[in-house]
């Protein structure tokens, strides 16, 4: 009896919490289907009077979204794969290899997490233009090919792998590199998937950087497309919401597909100081 009661209580709490979490999204979708007048109407309506599905079409046509989508996909895929590679190599070095200056280098990199990214915008822009990468995929991708946070996370995970495994592999005739790829990487799959997902989300939603380093429509990514709905004198809310709904959907799907790995990935990272 008591058991059933407390279970019920948990469900009620979680459901209320979920509703609070979902509310903004429900509103977003609801708004995306309204007419401009109904968007402004008060009191607000939850269910649109007439379902303006063509808002989605209109929003899609406001900017070259097809191209943006393609760019976003390219940038997300390449930078995620790239970051995973650099992260795996670096995390391995920081967790399994002995070398001079290892701890100090790691600490310096950790220290960079404490500086706000806004400071880095212009110096990095200058670096990229010196390299001649402005308005190229290089500019959208290369600066984001490594993340100290990901390295930290994966390093923690690697530290949790018994070092005998490394010894065993060495004796089995496995080189460092081979061991990393054929043992550590498969073992760390949950952590790597987690890092990849976090990266993909970040990369997919990035706004200011893609805007700054690109000069042409052909190179722009999806979030930049959201600016098409706002000007100095007003915002097309219904179209903005339609576009936003379209933009967040792929990441939600990706998360749902990958979520079974995520908790494991984070939990094995050990999170020990």
């Amino acid at each position, binding site marked *: 009896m008591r058991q059933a009661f407390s279970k019920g209580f948990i469900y009620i709490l979680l459901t209320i919490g979920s509703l609070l979490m979902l509310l903004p999204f429900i509103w977003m979708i609801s708004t995306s289907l309204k007419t401009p007048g109904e968007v402004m109407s008060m009191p607000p309506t939850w269910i649109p009077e007439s379902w303006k599905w063509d808002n989605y079409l209109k929003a899609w046509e406001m900017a070259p979204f097809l191209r943006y989508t393609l760019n976003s996909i390219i940038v997300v895929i390449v930078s995620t794969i790239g970051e995973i590679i650099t992260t795996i190599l670096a995390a391995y070095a920081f967790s399994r290899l*002995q070398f*001079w200056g290892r701890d100090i280098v790691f600490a310096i990199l950790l220290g*960079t997490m*404490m500086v*706000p990214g*806004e400071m880095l915008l212009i*110096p*990095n822009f200058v670096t990229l233009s010196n390299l001649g990468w402005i308005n190229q995929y290089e500019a959208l991708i*290369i600066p984001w090919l490594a993340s100290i946070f990901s390295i930290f996370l994966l390093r923690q995970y690697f530290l949790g792998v018994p070092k005998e495994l490394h010894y065993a592999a060495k004796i089995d005739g496995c080189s460092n590199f081979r061991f990393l790829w054929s043992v550590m990487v498969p073992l760390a799959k949950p952590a790597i998937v987690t890092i990849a997902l976090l990266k993909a989300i970040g990369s997919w939603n990035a706004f200011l950087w893609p805007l700054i380093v690109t000069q042409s429509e052909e190179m722009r990514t999806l979030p930049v497309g959201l600016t098409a709905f706002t000007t100095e004198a007003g915002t097309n809310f219904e179209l903005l919401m339609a576009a936003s709904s379209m933009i967040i959907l792929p990441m939600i799907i990706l998360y749902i597909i990958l979520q079974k790995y995520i908790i494991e990935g984070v939990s094995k990272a050990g999170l020990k*100081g």
Partner: protein
Amino acid sequence: MNQKPTLKDTLIGYSYLLPALIILGVFSVYPIIKSFFMSFYADYDFFKDIVHSYGFDNFIYIFQDTEFYKSLTNTFIFVIGVVPASISISLVIAILLNSKIKFGKLFRTIYFLPFVTSVVAIAIVWQWIYHSEYGILNYFLGWFGISPIEWLNDPKWSMPALIIMCIWKSLGYNIILFLAGLQNINPQYYLAAQIDGASKFKRFWHITVPLLSPTTFFVSIVVLINSFKVFDEVFALFNGRPGPGYSAQTIVYYIFEKFYNEWEFGIASAAAFVLFIIIFIFTLIQLYVGKRKVNY
């Protein structure tokens, strides 16, 4: 047991590190060092990159600037408002989700949604939620007899509004971290405690809390650092302004404004330097406290 690394080990080590080191070196470490420098440029032509004189002028300026103090205060209010609340709420939800329930995955997905979403898109929805006359928040508060609050118009309420939105947005990620931590706790401890006659709450307090302390510690460091660096949420929630009467101006907003709107590069760098020191000190304090309080 560590052997002393040889030159060869060192070469191997750095060869693994090289790709990450190049990227982070060029795009993180170098610009940071460069900006730290800029904070000592008293007279500087940013575009031609000519330093006419060095000095502490920028630091003197910010420490005499009431706006800077205000943004410091706001940042601290934000940190105090977000960090404990976000951590405790997500801990509770994680524990609820961890008790064997149906639809666990569905709930988890829902709580994670805000994290997946871009701040810019969702902040517009929040503006509507906070609307004083027609917003859903004041509507709910009305049930409890609370008269409408001018969340976004009243300088007194802009920080709470910002804090609530940021807690909402950060929950999902923290919940995931906590869920992961909870799964690392051996269920035998709970059985043992149950046999010892510990109530549900006591089990939570005497087993979950201490055994989860490493996770809590990690989460709190991440949340703390990110809270000190809050910017996007401020920018998006108040339409590119830091709230009515600059009431929600945080340090990073201050830095941003000095850098991008006022072209005061040295001052912006000096403020960034101060922020770095503050975060650094807090992280050290946390590490120190963590060392004593984290149970294993």
